[in-house]
């Protein structure tokens, strides 16, 4: 069976620092797979490798069978990527931004129009989309960016901390959108988070990562049972050795 994402023995060094240390995992098609772990665990590094932005020192990663290093151009056609700290061009309006980003993927103007309409719905920003991005609050900006990442219905959406820095209401909205969209359109999602609540709600399966290594993997339920804990947070602390 072909995996949506297949990481094999990923190693990434930044000088002396080993950000990833032989990390392997597989993401099945149409599932939401979460990478969870503390700051510096290697979540973002993994995600950046999958997004073809950085190269692994050794090991490999394939997206639907295409190599993220050797066939990066092909992989970029299959994915969309939402960085943890992402911005939008602040002098464009929300609509203009969505249009600009859609043009890279839409085959014709009809498709582009549909994409932008979808994005408007996903973001739930309504008329505010006519305003310039620089007038948006952090939450609105993030909703715009999530909509941008999903509107093209990519085969794989790579989301780094999708609710990063958002308050309860915005987070709630974003999570709901991701979950619904994946169910409706059969998109596969690779996301990272350190919000255990979010992970339990969203993910079909999760990988617990610490110091660049996988320490546990399974569905949130499986992990809780296996580790004999009430929630993932506790489980995480147990595995990493704090509890």
């Amino acid at each position, binding site marked *: 069976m072909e995996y949506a994402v297949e990481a094999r023995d990923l190693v990434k060094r930044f000088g002396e620092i080993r950000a990833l240390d032989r990390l392997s995992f597989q993401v099945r098609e149409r599932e939401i797979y979460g990478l969870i772990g503390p700051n510096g665990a290697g979540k973002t590094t993994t995600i950046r490798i999958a997004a*073809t932005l*950085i190269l692994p020192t050794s090991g490999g990663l394939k997206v639907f069978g295409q190599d993220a290093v050797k066939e990066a151009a092909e992989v970029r056609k299959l994915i969309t990527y939402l960085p943890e700290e992402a911005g939008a061009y602040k002098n464009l309006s929300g609509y203009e931004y969505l249009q600009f980003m859609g043009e890279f993927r839409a085959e014709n103007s009809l498709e582009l129009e549909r994409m932008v309409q979808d994005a408007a719905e996903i973001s739930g920003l309504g008329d505010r989309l006519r305003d310039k991005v620089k007038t948006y609050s952090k939450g609105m900006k993030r909703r715009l960016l999530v909509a941008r990442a999903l509107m093209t219905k990519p085969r794989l959406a790579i989301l780094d901390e999708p609710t990063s820095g958002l308050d309860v209401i915005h987070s709630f909205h974003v999570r709901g959108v991701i979950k619904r969209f994946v169910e409706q359109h059969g998109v596969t999602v690779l996301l990272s988070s350190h919000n255990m609540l979010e992970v339990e709600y969203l993910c079909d399966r999760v990988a617990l990562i610490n110091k660049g290594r996988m320490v546990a993997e399974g569905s949130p339920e499986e992990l809780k049972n296996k580790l004999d804990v009430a929630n993932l947070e506790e489980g995480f602390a147990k595995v990493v050795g704090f509890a």
Partner: protein
Amino acid sequence: MKELKELLRDPKILIGMIIMPLVMFPLLGMVIGTSIESTGQSLQTITLGIADFDQGEWSKNLTRYLSSVPNIVIMKITATNLNEAVAQLQTNPKATDLIVIPEGFSANISSRKQATIETYSVYSGKGLTEGATSSIISQLLAQYNRDLAPNLFKTEAGSIVKGQPRKIDPRALLQVMSSQVLVLPVTVSILLMFAMQIAATSVASEKEEKTLETLLSLPIDRFTILLGKMTGSIVVAAVSAVAYMVGFNYYMTSLTTGLGSQVTVDLEALGLAPSSLSYMLLGASLFAAILSALALAVILSAFTEDVRSAQSYMSYLYIIIMFPMLLVMFSDINTLPLALKIVAYAIPYTYPMLAAKAAFTGEYLQAILGILYVAAFTVILLYLAARLFATEKILTAKLRIRGFGQRRKGPAAEA
């Protein structure tokens, strides 16, 4: 107190506002000083051609007087008419001025009629210091005139332009030409600096606004992104250069009319108006230089985290633009000391300014060679910029600084 600490501990402010001026101004001073000095040296001796068509008592007297002046080397012209005299004068590259004593000069003076002397100054487009020799000569003649008896002869001043004697006062010509000599290098420099600033800002703001990562994950060729950035910068820079030129031109005209100069100089008749070939050369040279400046700006800004540091990095690059600009404005590069000459010719941004000058002086060969050199330089830089965009370095250069603190890499190490 906290403000002071914050500001002083910011390396960008420290380097940009304190160390840079300390380095920059002495450097500029040195450049201007040396170029004026080297021109000054060529001024210490004036090689003056005298074409004596009179061969009378007073013309010989005048020749003796001029040869007695220290630092004037007399070159006797044996020609029989003006055009031949000019041709003969120009066989000596050091000769800057010609005095023509017409037939009947001595007879006129002896009979107390007003006599005429023609002077011609060679126009060579050397820069702002040009024209000093002709004023020395005219002062000497005025002195001689006074010693003799008031107003016994009058002087008609002319210029030698591209080997042709012209009835145009060298001072009027210089006034017109020097505004050109000023406008062009300044415009070129401003254009280059604007373009660099814009390209650097464009890349750095993608980083600062965190849009670069998203952009790089899109299914578009990285080289296309690079070209897009550069094209955008060229367009904006060109618009601003035009606006600048218009403004500067207005300033110059208001300045010269303010001086009350009523002399109109027909540059076209003098062969000094830029030809279409020279415009093309200037355009080509400028285009190549802008591309290389943009590639350089993109490379450098890839190593910055935000717009502010990108801009302060750019200000270091301004030195290599200001340096040739000042040299071209204030001196003739060929008269500079060897070391300075090598530096000037090594900097690619010297060439569009020389090409701008060539538009008026017709030294095309240098302009063409310059274009080739700049083009080669540009290709290398573009290649490096493309490589940088194609790899993860455009992101990791920032990541290292941000994520892991202490490691700062210079652009040279990575490029």
